[in-house]
């Protein structure tokens, strides 16, 4: 009889801990398609990972409320609304969304598609997320697989913003020489590019808002065209505009990673115990027309 009673208590306890009722507020920086794609992947994966109630249940008790930030909205009022709704989790998609959610400290926050989360939130206990960029060393390893001759990589960067990235890349790729050109403004870019003439095999375009602007991007493309130097960009968006290679950002994969983090937080893990996740797989996209024009000979088995 006692044994039976203990089993019932255990079952009830298990049921109580395994309750998956979850209120998620997804805050998007804008209604742009990349945020929507990542959110869809997040939602789908979260539902897939969450068990249902009983054998007949086909959907867990998960509510995801999506909000797109607008310029005319008052952030404080919106935050009040979110707190009032007693959300279990906030997913911040984009820098603007993270900047909006960061002042909330009593609800776990997962960031997604944020280039520099540390610059926005710093070390905050209720925040974790998925890093946007693959590990820089992995990027160059993937590139070396198809272009082993790229020994000298030119890079112009703002030391205040992206020096760490360059360092990480240099550390991870000992056989590669990184020709560095630190710059304080975009206007220095043309001169730095001119100084790289004949010095490099590849030009690395960094996600540095000081260095990269629509004007300086044109300087990069013109330099590459004049000197037959391929460009490695950090986003596919530059591929059609003049970059030769680009790192493909798998938004759905990032969404799925965020869903995993959300599941763990709901299972009781604290965000500060969950380090930011980052995709390990690196996929390079190639502008075939440009490689042909530049006369590049890529290795067999290239993606």
């Amino acid at each position, binding site marked *: 009889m006692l044994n039976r009673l203990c089993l019932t208590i255990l079952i009830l306890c298990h049921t109580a801990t395994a309750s998956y009722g979850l209120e998620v507020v997804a805050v998007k*920086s*804008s209604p*742009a398609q*990349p*945020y929507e794609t990542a959110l869809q992947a997040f939602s789908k994966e979260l539902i897939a990972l969450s068990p249902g109630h009983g054998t007949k249940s086909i959907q867990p008790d998960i509510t995801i409320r999506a909000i797109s930030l607008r310029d005319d909205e008052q952030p404080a009022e919106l935050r009040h609304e979110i707190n009032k709704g007693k959300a279990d989790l906030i997913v911040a998609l*984009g*820098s*603007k969304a993270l900047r909006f959610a960061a002042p909330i400290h009593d609800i776990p926050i997962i960031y997604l*598609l*944020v*280039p*520099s989360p540390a610059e926005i939130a710093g070390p905050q206990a209720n925040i974790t997320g998925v890093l*946007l960029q693959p590990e820089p060393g992995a990027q160059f390893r993937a590139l070396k697989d198809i272009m082993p001759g790229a020994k000298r990589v030119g890079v112009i960067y703002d030391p205040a913003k992206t020096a760490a990235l360059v360092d990480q890349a240099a550390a991870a790729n000992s056989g590669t020489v990184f020709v560095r050109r630190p710059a304080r403004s*975009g*206007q220095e*870019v*043309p*001169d730095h590019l001119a100084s790289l003439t004949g010095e490099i095999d590849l030009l690395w375009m960094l*996600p*540095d*808002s000081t260095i*990269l*602007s*629509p*004007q300086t991007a*044109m*300087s990069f493309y*013109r330099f590459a065209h004049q000197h037959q130097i391929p460009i490695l960009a*950090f*986003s596919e*968006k530059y591929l059609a505009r003049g970059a030769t290679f680009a790192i493909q*950002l798998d938004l759905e994969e990032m969404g799925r990673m965020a869903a995993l983090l959300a599941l763990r937080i709901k299972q009781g893990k604290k965000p500060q115990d969950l380090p930011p996740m980052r995709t390990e797989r690196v996929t390079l996209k190639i502008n075939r027309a440009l490689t042909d024009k530049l006369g590049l000979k890529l290795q067999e088995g290239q993606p």
Partner: protein
Amino acid sequence: MILGHFSKQIRASYSAKLIAIFIAALCLMATALNITSNRMHKSSYTKYMQSNGLALAQLLAKSVQLDVFSENLEQLQMPAASLLDREDILQVEILTSKGRPLVSLGKTHKSNQIPDRATLLTGIRAQAPHFKEWPTTFSYWWPVEALATTSSEDALYFDVEPAQADGEQEPLGYVTLLVSKIHYEKDIREMALRTGLIILLLLVLLVTGTLLLTRRMTLPLRTLIHKIQSQRTIGEGHDDIGLLDTTVTNLIKDLDHSFETITNLKTGLENQVKERTRQLALANQGLTTRQEYLEEANQQLEKAMQELQETEGQLIQSEKMAALGQVVAGVAHEINNNINFISGALPSLSRGINDLKELTRTFGAACLEEPGEKQAEMRLKALALKKEIEQDDLFTSLDELMGNIREGVKRTIRIVTDLHTFSRADEQGFKRVDLHSSLDSTLTFVNKKYLKGIFIHQEYGTIPLVTCRPGRLNQVFLNIMNNGIQAMARQGGTLKITTFLEDDHVHIRFSDTGCGISKEVLPKIFDPFFTSKGPGAGTGIGLAVSYKIIQEHRGRITVTSREGEGSIFEVILPVDGQKEALPPVDNSDG
């Protein structure tokens, strides 16, 4: 001199005035059109120059965007220099947003009216239009703009903020172009010249067409005016319309006068008509009285004529009856002769037949008797009788008697045939007849009491059958023969009947050697009721009837006579008496 002539012509002609006004209006319209057209062309061309220059400036601004951003002076020189290759571009400047010149290239220009940089910058900073027209140049400027650097790092990765990506622009600097107006003004002048020439040509065509059309349209008016001028004294109007006005006014006056005259004449005429009508009514009344009188007289005449026709009919009937009497007398005479001939033979024939009967009976009885004496006795008796009656002579006599009777019957048959041929009572219509047979049968019935001592000589030629009414012709022939025989009754003579064909006409000529006809009587012999015979000897209409019958046959009857020597009556008939006609009767003396 020429102007004076034209001025005089215009004053004299209303249509010329209209044409002159129309041509003047055309010239004014052409001038206005030319001015308007030139202004429109200039406006359009100026807009074209504006858009063209602005497009150049915009292109230059876009192409130097990066080099302005980086202030790459070397790169900036190239597009500016290439633009200066164009002949009409005088100056190209690329400035920073503060107005500091990065590139300033220009040509020497004759005019010193190029706006200086300070003036241009004033306009640019005042957000003035990108285009400005100066006395000798056009200036264009366009900002060199760059997309604003986004504050969001997300945009480095994704196109997440379109407003930031394509929207706000920040000026990096300006490009300015100065374009000479020399080519522009030259083009404007050429366009104005071409437009003017086209309008002038159109004006000439319109004026020429108007003149020709007006000349053609006013031709009837001019013809009318010429006619008026040729009939009236020139100068009654100060121009052709005045002349027409005067003429029409005079015509209306003349017309009024004419109407007045006509009214007066009409009034007089009506009075005359009334008087004449009254006179005519009176005359008509008299005529009505006379007409009634004439109608009465006419009725009396018609009645008399009817009576006369009835009398004539009776007389003709009498003549027919007289002729018939003659024929009947002739027929009776002939038949009587034949009957006498036959009746005279009948007693002798009866006697001879009785003798033959006795002889035949006697011989018959003798033949029937038994041979013997009695038979011999009877035979002798018969032989004696035969001798007594002279049997051979009896047979000869019987043949002669039978011949006489046969001849008598034959003659009677001929008479009857001739009578039938003569009368043709049942054949009054036209038919083809042998006239010789008609003449022969008619001769049978001539008046026999005058035939004593008269020799009938028939000399028939070859004639065709004649289409005629034979009964009527026989009446004519009998009449002529009887007249001839009567003329020869006292002294005897010869009646010669001759027939021949001449010119498709059959001639029947009756010549007698009688007393002839006097000249006084000869013209009257065909008149009705005229006779030279004694009372009761003739009706006086025999020849008149004969004349009428021959006329019916479209023939002629002629008479030639000498008193005391005889007469010749000649009947001329067409072969087809139904169709042809001959001239009227020709009565001539000997």
